[in-house]
């Protein structure tokens, strides 16, 4: 559908933004291949959303699958379950190295794994971002909620789905807060790493994934 015929603020802006992408990126028309850590959790929802946002999605269950990827998404799920797998066969070290050089995006459990510090309880993580994350900080499932939050992106407030969500309880000086729910950062970025405590993969709004695909494209251009 042509852009001009679309109504609504967000949609129009997005189309314009994505049509400018090839100029920004040096590798024109290269479709980035983005892995989704598929140990456990809502990895399929992420894979679908990445494909809709112009990337090729690959499910990753073993460390050697990381090699050809341009970026990685760590989905929602149970971070303690994912850690059990990452602690085998040098997966955690390999993934930590990967997120140092290539773009990464974590939602919920993924945000916990990308953080430098984890509370409630303390657990191992990849340390890709200078943030402290507190697990299950809102309470139990009954405290899960959906609401609209303003972000730094164009296109108005964004619907955010919080499910047994963690909270970002501390951010380092180099961390860019992309969205705050009240006083609490819920979407942050530091260099090549991005984390959200909500689940953009469960909303119809594609802006967060499009932003990540754009990050991956930019890095591809840089390399």
């Amino acid at each position, binding site marked *: 559908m042509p852009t001009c015929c679309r109504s609504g603020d967000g949609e129009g802006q997005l189309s314009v933004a994505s049509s400018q992408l090839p100029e920004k990126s040096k590798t024109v028309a290269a479709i980035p291949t983005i892995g989704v850590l598929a140990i*456990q959790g809502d*990895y399929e929802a992420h894979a679908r959303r990445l494909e809709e946002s112009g990337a090729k999605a690959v499910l990753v269950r073993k460390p050697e699958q990381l090699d050809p990827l341009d970026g990685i998404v760590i989905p929602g799920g149970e971070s303690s379950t994912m850690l059990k797998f990452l602690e085998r066969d040098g997966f955690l070290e390999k993934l930590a190295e990967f997120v140092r050089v290539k773009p990464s995006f974590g939602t919920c459990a993924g945000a916990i794994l990308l953080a430098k510090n984890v509370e409630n309880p303390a657990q191992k993580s990849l340390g890709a971002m200078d943030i402290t994350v507190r697990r299950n900080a809102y309470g*139990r499932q009954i405290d*899960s*909620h*959906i609401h609209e939050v303003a972000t730094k992106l164009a296109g108005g407030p964004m*619907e955010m*789905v919080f*499910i047994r969500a963690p909270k970002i309880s501390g951010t380092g000086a180099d961390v860019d807060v992309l969205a705050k729910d009240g006083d609490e950062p819920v979407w942050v970025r530091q260099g090549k790493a991005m984390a959200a405590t909500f*689940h953009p993969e469960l909303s119809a709004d594609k802006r967060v994934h499009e932003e990540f695909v754009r990050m991956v494209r930019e890095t591809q251009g840089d390399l």
Partner: protein
Amino acid sequence: MSEKNGSNNASSNSLRLKTGLAEMLKGGVIMDVTDPKQAEIAERAGAAAVMALERVPAQIRAEGGVSRMANPRMIQKIMDTVNIPVMAKCRIGHFAEAQVLEALGVDYIDESEVLTPADELHHVDKHAFKVPFVCGARDLGEALRRIAEGAAMIRTKGEAGTGDVVHAVKHMRQIVKDMRQLTVMGEEELYAAAKEHRAPYELVRMVAKTGKLPVPNFSAGGIATPADAALMRQLGAEAVFVGSGIFMGDKSRCEECANGEHRYDRGCALAQPEVAEARARAIVRATTHFDDPKVLLETSKEVTGAMKGLAVAGLPDADMLQKRGW
């Protein structure tokens, strides 16, 4: 397409939150536990969630009697022990037990045929709750009736507490087959199909269009080994529930029982904690790597024995838990 913020409607948001937690459990294993110690073992082994109950189905079978919701004090202890989601079971139709569990703050309620039913006609009106529900099903009609009542996750019933996977397979194949048949039907055939499945037409039509259930579809009932878990995943289950298969042992190997020093009670039928943890870990790994025979081989080597189990084919009709539910 794609209406941004298309659902300001409270009931649709509520269902999205309920199925959202089920999304987070996909690819994982939900383990039955009866005390905080078992819950700890399950979490350490990589369970995505635990199901807190008084007795695992194999014990319910062995001991008989009326089976009810677990004591909230025990469930609370389990909730205090682990950081992963905690589910608990209420009896079919027992909405007061469900109210208690919701007030307690469990993350999911299983309206389960494993417990003694409290209503022979009606299931709980699950829309009336904020906490999500999972329900068992043997075929598509049953699954859609539960979804119509508000279930946010479906699991195959299988035959719980047997360690025999045959009916989990039967029910998963039946549901998948029923769905596939709908997808090739003409619009006008769907009305008759809805009647045949005794399910709401709107849901039947939705399945005919998408070829899948509108909520996550998990498997339960007799899964006892890593290969069982992989089998169910390959047949289409998005995650698995393992009940008695992890913590139950083989009573025939208990020396004291052989010497007549034990009566058939709970303790001696349990697997050693190390054995249970190794099984749990292997089943978790097999569930993730369900399509990788090399990993399945490794995980199968990691377990020492499985629960002794009961062959479903030899069970009298009255002992079949799966017949409960309407």
